[in-house]
């Protein structure tokens, strides 16, 4: 398995929407390389015949009655928002100005 390097971390930080300074990228790349190296053995633990477990106690088809339950008012839903306008979340520009 390939080691993780500084370019990888920069790419991953962009995907995860976290701005990182040059110094932070250097440090994070070093720390993550050690962590990734320590978890490598996991890929050798199980053969192809072992099924994956995504959930410790699987419950299937959990349904409820199709009735309207409690819902938030717009005011409640917006109560923690950094910015709102006329009952809606207000966000910065979604598209780049080109």
């Amino acid at each position: 398995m390939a080691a993780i390097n500084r370019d990888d971390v920069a790419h991953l930080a962009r995907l995860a929407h976290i701005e990182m300074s040059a110094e932070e990228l250097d440090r994070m790349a070093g720390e993550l390389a050690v962590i990734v190296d320590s978890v490598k053995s996991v890929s050798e633990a199980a053969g192809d015949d072992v099924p994956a477990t995504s959930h410790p106690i699987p419950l299937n088809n959990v349904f409820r009655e199709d009735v309207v339950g409690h819902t938030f008012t717009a005011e409640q839903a917006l109560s923690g928002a950094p910015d709102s306008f006329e009952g809606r979340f207000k966000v910065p520009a979604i598209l780049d100005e080109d």
Partner: protein
Amino acid sequence: MTELNNSELIRLSAAQLAAKLAAREVTSVEVTQAYLDRIADVDGQVNAFLHVNAEEALAVAAEVDAIRAAGGAEAEALHELAGVPIAVKDLIVTIGQPTTAGSKILEGWHSPYDATVIKRLRAAKMPILGKTNLDEFAMGSSTEHSAYGPTRNPWDLDRIPGGSGGGSAAAVAAFEAPLALGTDTGGSIRQPGAVTGTVGMKPTYGAVSRYGAIAMASSLDQIGPVSRTVLDSALLQEVIGGHDPFDSTSLTDPFDTLVAAAKTGNVTGMKIGIIKELHGEGYQAGVENRFNESLELLKEAGAEIVEVSCPNFKYALGAYYLIMPSEVSSNLAKFDGVRYGLRVLPKDGPMTIERVMAATRAAGFGDEVKRRIILGTYALSAGYYDAYYGSAQKVRTLIQRDFEAAFAQADVLISPTAPTTAFKLGEKLDDPLAMYLNDVATIPANMAGIPGLSLPGGLADEDGLPVGIQLLAPAREDARLYRVGAVLESLLEEKWGGPLLDRAPVLKAPVLDSSSTIAGGSN
């Protein structure tokens, strides 16, 4: 009304307080005020609380007292723990109090809804004393990753109280609360319990609703009780547990024999399995000694000690540090500076939502959270998914199989809860991998969804600090842990001549300078 002074009152267990409240030997307002005074006296040193909820707690206490004083059907219908105060880990959302998750990104945020466990505490009329400190979004083993400063261990204020639920454990250990709620994703209830000399229980996955616990890793997270006695944890789990339609992973099993199990502890003829891979090499000598002592006591009480092997546990830590960050990277994507919490604008350049999001998350998240998000994003990337996340999920199957084989040979498994006693603040902060190793004995239970209980096992010879003993049972067999835990607790307390916390150093309010007047209300 009471013959006990406040310093005696706060040392009573929840069960003892409940009995005194029911007998009207003490009022809930007196009890709640005694704890609020204790918090005022010592929390400046311990930093267990991020928010103190005095007004609401006293109002609930007064309500309980009025109902009791009036008598009649309403008094009869009061829950056994009505009027007994509790502290809540600040990962669990509450109306009327801030919820921060220990993060700057949620500073000042108030939830518009209560977690299911909070609704149940309110229904039982338990006064909520406040919200306790934690590693940011429950990511850590020392509470040092809190954005609001570390919590300190009441046994030695220069040492960590464990994590992520160090605030809940320290609050209970420092007699700032008789009970607390925690959450356990890889040991965050049990390991703080171990290093603070308190009891911590991670119930079976799904036995307690997760609705309203801010998700870290959804397939591993579990809310559970923190207390000073095994019986108190059983009492609390019966309050908060049981099916919840708001959590699709909630089990429909009743879990209503926990208190009875704690009261009728008996290990005669039980098989208790030592997990070969979870002691010995890598475990502190003093931890190992106390562990062996507990085995001897259980044997004398009529249990049969057997040895079991779980060979795939050597992959558990690695698999956990792939699955958990993968789920973290997905769960924490919602903190985007739009719907709640912090919004930070980039210093210059175009003000697009993506750049605002990146600036917000950079400023709002601490280093450990960022590390785990990046690691999870990596493990889930195209090209790496099979090798990392896919392999880790297979290891999860292998760990479940190891447990199945072990439980075919033993009714309950036993190990030390953590490999060492509490380490010094700052000691492992710059070495994430060393920090992760604290959870080596607690992680397998989360991976398999089984219940785990940590109880005090004594003090390590070399440093005089608490050691935790962990008991594990098959899924849905939480009652078995309370049964064995209560027996071991009573055998150990008989040996010590009282609870372990009686041997903790006495924390006192800071000495006031001569210009201050002494306000009433403290000890």
